[in-house]
């Protein structure tokens, strides 16, 4: 059965949330909020988990559009979007190939760096390399090359899961183990001290534009999982209280990353503004969080926009998009 749609009412929208990734809980919260916001615009919305019943349901009654609110693997590595492509179902967000690139932090960093975007120096190593060469020698080389402090994170993950700031060499082995608990490859990068900011980028078909820059100030100084998802434990300032030129640079970098990586509809770049006012690009999220404590909804609100309307416009754009574009 072919989905029916019109310019005003695209038809039934399916919000996918949950899944089996480590970020299932966050995803469910994002999905709930996005669904409610879309319902507020009058759209018919179905929330759905990703399980063995999904594919038959999509085939039997394809929705007009899917909004993937799946965080972490499957949701952000392009896998679920490949399935949607197979079924010719429109969806909000980047294509599978772009997701694969953007979700892999080392690959995305390399592409960004090649395009002239400033990103912390880093290296990327599978854990087998430490086993084969001996951990001590490799760790020593890492510190010699990148210095201290370092940020160690899984190559593919979100919500700061498996991330550790390393101040002393003695902390490095445990940080590596922490990262490898979430995946076989770790990214070890120079830790840039400074103001942490997030910049959402949206494109409703008229070209990418950045939303207000969000400054993130966690009570404990580290924007880890607890700081991200415990209401009250982080102070957000929107727009960030930075010099106008710095804000403009943040905006420029976020849009540049969005374009360089080939993203579409929506992304969120995470940046650091160091003490000299230099902007460092850390990573991009192809399915950024929409929980009650997430930065994108804050930025949308600060822009004077309605969350539901913004996503509904992205839905309209996705529905209007030619297949396989």
């Amino acid at each position, binding site marked *: 059965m072919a989905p029916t749609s019109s310019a005003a009412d695209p038809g039934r929208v399916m919000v996918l949330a949950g899944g089996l990734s480590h970020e299932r809980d966050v995803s469910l919260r994002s999905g709930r909020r996005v669904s409610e916001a879309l319902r507020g615009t009058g759209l018919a919305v179905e929330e759905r988990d990703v399980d063995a019943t999904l594919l038959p349901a999509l085939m039997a009654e394809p929705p007009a559009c899917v909004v993937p609110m799946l965080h972490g693997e499957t949701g952000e590595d392009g896998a679920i979007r490949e399935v949607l492509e197979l079924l010719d179902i429109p969806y909000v967000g980047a294509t599978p190939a772009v997701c694969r690139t953007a979700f892999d932090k080392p690959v995305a960093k390399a592409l960004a760096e090649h395009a002239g975007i400033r990103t912390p120096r880093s290296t990327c190593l599978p*854990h087998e390399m430490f086993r084969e060469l001996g951990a001590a020698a490799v760790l020593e080389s890492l510190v010699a090359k990148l210095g201290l402090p370092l940020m160690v994170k899984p190559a593919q993950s979100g919500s700061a899961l498996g991330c*550790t700031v390393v101040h002393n060499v003695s902390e490095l082995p445990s940080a590596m183990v922490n990262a490898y*608990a*979430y995946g076989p490859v770790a990214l070890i990068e120079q830790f840039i001290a400074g103001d942490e900011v997030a910049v959402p980028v949206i494109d409703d078909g008229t070209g990418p534009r950045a939303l207000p820059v969000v400054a993130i100030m966690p009570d404990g100084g580290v924007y880890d999982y607890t700081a991200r998802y415990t209401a009250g434990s982080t102070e957000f300032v*929107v727009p960030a209280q930075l010099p106008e030129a710095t804000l403009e640079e943040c905006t420029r970098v976020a849009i540049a990353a969005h374009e360089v990586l080939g993203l579409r509809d929506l992304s969120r770049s995470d940046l650091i503004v160091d003490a000299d006012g230099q902007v460092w690009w850390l990573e991009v999220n192809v399915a950024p969080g929409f929980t009650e404590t997430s930065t994108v909804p804050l930025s949308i609100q600060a822009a004077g926009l309605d969350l539901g309307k913004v996503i509904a416009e992205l839905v309209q754009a996705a529905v209007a998009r030619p297949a396989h574009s």
Partner: protein
Amino acid sequence: MNEVTPRSQGSSTRLDSYVDRYAARTQGMTASEIRALFAVASRPEVVSLAGGMPNISGLPLDVVGRAIGDLIAEQGPTAMQYGSGQGVPELREQICEVMKLEGISAHADDVTVTVGSQQAVDLVTRIFCDPGDVVICEAPSYVGALGVFKAYQAEVVHAEMDKDGLVPDALRQAIAATRAAGKRIKFLYTIPNFHNPAGVTLSAARRPEILEICREADILVLEDNPYGLLGFDQEPIPALRASEAEGVIYLGSFSKTFAPGFRVGWALAPHAVREKLVLAQESATLCPPQFSQMAISAYLTNHDWLGQIKHFREMYRERRDAMVDALEAYLPKSCQWNVPEGGFYVWLTLPPGIDAKAMLPRAVTARVAYVPGTAFFADGFGSGSIRLSYCYPTPERIREGVRRLAGVLEQEMELRATFGATTPPSLAARSGYDAPSTDIN
């Protein structure tokens, strides 16, 4: 930084307008990576050896359904009305009959019905503990009780256990050290039978000694006994309360012997304490749920509940055997575990250097879940152990879960061999409130 243009005027928010108004006791009530991982464990693809949900698949639902239908038809207006703060008198009489199985002679007047025995732990702590008071607990101890003690800002001091349960000398030392530090001990919280999470049982030989230590030190004993009737190969063991009426508050529950959804437990307390428990109960809930109490009372009256418990015991024994056999078959020799003689849990000690909390993401990726040992300590210990529950999954799923766990462990050991024994700094600093909510039973 050189500012060449004015800074923007942003609006600040913490996304919680009550952030400055919460009580100090909410400190630690935060989101955690570990709790987030348990959200995945609820999916059917994951073999969850984490939660302690009783397996009630064997309950005669037709019998229960008829009993509840009759209850509504015959006593509906009473069953759906407020009731006594102390609980339904007929049920309290029946509770005394249940407790006789463990050698307890009690009067129904001294029983206070509670919303599960979890609420009994809460009420006892509420009436005894001021902030800073000390509760002595076994090491490890029940995560739900630790949460209550933390909420009342009581300090937990752990005393070691071995295969025979709480070690008397460890209890003496804990009492002496606490008092030497000038702190007030309010009670000993103990789970003598088929311990959650340790799986061990306090030996008959030690029971008088533990009671004597507490009597001499003038310390109340809070005996939490939800699993006492679920021994696999033996008659119920006489409760501590059976030989000590004044110094023991005994907590019981129908959650494991019938069904947890009714939320009915009880406290048997010395008369003066009982008075305060009833007042505290009235303050907390007005009364325990009348409908649940009357439904359980009807079940006890009309059904072979002892036969049902025998069925539960046999089911759990089969699952215990499946788990122990799988552990023997799949796990490396450097792991150690106990063979519980009842209850729901195996306590597994991991090979040296393995951190149970740090390993959990890898386990969830491999579609198996457990509870890291740190959840059962108030002081951050327990990283080298995990609790495995065999109560809920089928024997086949238990075997598959242990097989997956063995694979995870093998990868983790390889990683540790590469990097050496470590404790991730970001995880080591956290403790408490990390267990899945289904363990609060």
